[in-house]
């Protein structure tokens, strides 16, 4: 046997296996590049998202306006980049937050049971039956005038309940497994068992959930913006761009397809990363993909 490198803990193994996956690395690179152009390009291009070009209304893509302009003469490229800045944060941070919330709430409710379970279940059920906008309406004074990042929190807060229920169910069955009992009999505290044994054993579910959340949060943001939250004109997000210009798809296509294309690219890249992570966590997946 050739000398195996002295990499032994799970963190190291997962990282090594993740780095070996070409497609995952590709997806990861795309996400980084999207971040880079979203935040850096405004520094280099001529038109900013809130500048009007009175000489070009509804112009198709040209050398001057790479992605064309809107009917008011806003530069579509600048709008798309501005929108992507928002959507990347809403999608990625929101997805991770909501999945993390679901994982923790579900696992703690399932593992500790009793009062904690009853309390968390009550919150879950309440949020499931109450229409989201009602709560938003009630809470709106609280959020008025604050940074739009609060809004990411709010979005995540409406997203986690169903996953949390699945997590709770899986926790109930994982809790009976012998390796969890073994850890208990070793004296490992419950919260550690949850993070070390229970959640990693549902990593596939959580990762899939997070990747699905990315796109659904970006689109859900449109709905809440409608109620006057978060991203307000003249500011934009990919979601509002796609929502506003969806009826232009057949006529002035650039207004719809270019932002939509970036959303698709982002979602694809996130899926690749998700698949790679899932395989890296799963010891049964082949450790090397060519």
């Amino acid at each position: 046997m050739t000398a195996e490198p002295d990499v032994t803990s799970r963190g190291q193994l997962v990282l090594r296996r993740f780095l070996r996956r070409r497609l995952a690395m590709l997806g990861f690179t795309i996400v980084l590049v999207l971040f880079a152009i979203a935040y850096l390009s405004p520094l280099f291009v001529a038109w900013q998202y809130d500048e009007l070009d009175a000489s070009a209304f509804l112009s198709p893509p040209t050398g001057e306006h790479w992605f064309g302009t809107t009917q008011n003469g806003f530069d579509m490229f600048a709008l798309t980049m501005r929108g992507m800045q928002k959507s990347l944060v809403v999608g990625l941070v929101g997805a991770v937050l909501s999945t993390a919330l679901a994982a923790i709430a579900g696992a703690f409710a399932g593992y500790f049971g009793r009062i904690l379970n009853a309390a968390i279940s009550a919150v879950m059920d309440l949020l499931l039956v109450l229409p989201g906008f009602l709560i938003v309406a009630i809470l709106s004074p609280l959020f008025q005038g604050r940074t739009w990042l609060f809004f990411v929190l709010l979005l995540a807060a409406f997203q986690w309940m169903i996953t949390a229920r699945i997590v709770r169910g899986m926790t109930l069955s994982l809790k009976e497994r012998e390796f969890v009992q073994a850890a208990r009999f070793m004296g490992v505290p419950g919260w550690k068992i949850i993070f070390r044994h229970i959640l990693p054993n549902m990593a596939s579910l959580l990762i899939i959930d997070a990747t699905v959340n990315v796109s659904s949060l970006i689109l859900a943001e449109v709905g809440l913006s409608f109620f006057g939250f978060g991203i307000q004109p003249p500011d934009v997000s990919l979601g509002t761009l796609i929502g506003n210009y969806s009826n232009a798809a057949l006529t002035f296509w650039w207004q719809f397809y270019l932002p939509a294309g970036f959303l698709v690219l982002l979602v694809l890249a996130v899926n690749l990363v998700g698949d790679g992570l899932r395989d890296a966590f799963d010891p049964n997946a082949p450790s090397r993909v060519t």
Partner: protein
Amino acid sequence: MEAAPILQVRDLSVTLDSEAGPVLAVRSVSYSVRPGEVFGIVGESGSGKSVSSLAVMSLLPSHARIRGSVLFRGQELLGQSDRALSRIRGRRIAMVFQDPLSALTPVYSVGDQIAEAILVHESMSREAATERAVELLALVGIPSPRHRATAFPHEFSGGMRQRAMIAMAIANRPDLIIADEPTTALDVTIQAQILQVLRTAQEVTGAAIILITHDMGIIAGMADRVGVMYAGKLVETGSVDDVFYRARMPYTLGLLGSIPRLDRGTHQALTPIEGTPPSLVDLPPGCPFESRCPLRIPSCREVEPPLLEMAASGPGHLAACHRSAEVERRDLKSADVFPAPPPHASDRDGAPRAELDQVLEVQDLVKHFPLVKGAILRRRVGTVHAVDGISFDIRRGETLGLVGESGCGKTTAIMEILNLLAPTSGRIVVFGRDTANITHRERFETRRDLQVVFQDPMASLDPRLPVHDILAEPLEAHGVPAVEHSARVRELLRLVGLEPQHASRYPQALSGGQRQRVGIARALALEPRLLVLDEPVSSLDVSIRAGVINLLEQLKKELGLSYLFVAHDLSVVRHIADRVAVMYLGRFVEIGAVDDVFDRPAHPYTQALLSAIPLPDPVKERTRTRIVLEGDLPDPSDPPTGCRFRTRCQKFSGELADAARRRCIEEQPALAARTGGPDHLDACHYAVTASVL
């Protein structure tokens, strides 16, 4: 001249597809079965024993490539159409599977299914078929068959289902019954019942039986001839006596030497076979056993040995080994071929038991579970008396074997101990601390000294943690600094006979034996004083088992451990334990020093249990008188009055007069010394020792 074989298998080869590549599951296997004989096929998991018989029945998935020839009464079965085969399957050849639940349809009553099996092949009225079904159920020993015929499979216990399967198998008077591990999922006393039913079925139908099993004891008691399979090949075949007493292939010798014997006591040296069977995906040339064989010579690597007739034994004794002629000439036995560690002497360093420290004391332990019904409005409908007043203690350096069949409460008992909480009633004292009044802190500290090894290492090791993290977990939990983890992990791996490289593997990448070694290493990480071993070897293959048992014995001696060894396999307990407690329906029926209990069992249940275990010794098996218990374990939520064993007690039903029986019904017998030494206790009013081995 012998009768023409009923089944003739020639050069049967089966290749299965897997993700890793084609698996050579069976490689040119040839054997024949004569009418009315029992041909046993033994092998470990992955040896191809089941695949080969499924191939005979053409029951393999379509991606399997089968070559060779299978002649059933001169008619070729391979390559036949499904329709032609279905005329033979079920009628001329029947199968009994390990898991009868999957072979019975859940939505039809058992009687209907048997009647259906008859009607497929025979033309008779539905009523007549139903009547036949009832007769068959009676034949296989199902009580009140007419009534039970209308029951559904899930209403049957495991043993009853297997009886129903046998009834279905013999419904059309087949010429050949293929029984694939028919008793593996069952308890020993039920296994004894089923084996007897199989014998009856054979007598009634005159069918030949192919009996596939991993248990050498069952083969010794049932088979006329045996084939031993290893890595997809038949490596030795012959009459049972030839194979058991004159084995010439090192693997067979190793297998025989690795089985702890119920009739041999603690002084038997177990010969472990090192290593694991080769991967069937890329099989090296030469003898498949080469990597594990102590007799290997250079040519074993290159040339695969053919099956050759052994000159000195009876005809039909074949072995596949380059050196079998030499083995025959020198008449080598297991212990000559395989290096065995010296048998362990009793290691309670001479001092009388009473003077040693108590590491665990259990007094009148009771655990009842509420039996609830209904999903929303849960109401209590009864109480399961899982553990109902057991008392024992374990002294330093001692191994107590706790034996009993599934449902007897042994698992509940150890879980109660491991939980370190106050029990429903009774007392648990671990290292002098009473669990009823210890602080959180003390409980945590006690966990250091009390560790557990579970039955199935696949289930007890987190599949998503590499071995290093698994072994570091207890260290971290008890505050061993992180910098010391790696060194300690390496040390632990070495202690249990693994390599440092194994630290970076996931449990799935290890073999069963290696996994269980990781489980043991984890339990040892904190240098405990008492280990609870919950069936630690029963999920392992026979040849691997010996290695783990030897390891446990060696560790016990080196580290001065005490064991609470829970098992249903009495042979293993006899080998490893100093004292043994036999449990039935939540109570102890007998407890004492291991030799006392095994050689002079006093309680009828212990006697039946011991007599139910097949010995890997054909002559002894043939001459033994067997006590076969009737019926199944009673419902633990409604145990019988008086003596809990009376519903199945052979003494109660066979020997006692009515007046004497009254006492069994009315008075619960207490655990007391009735038959001999003060340390040998039993719970039977009429205990008389008997030797059943």
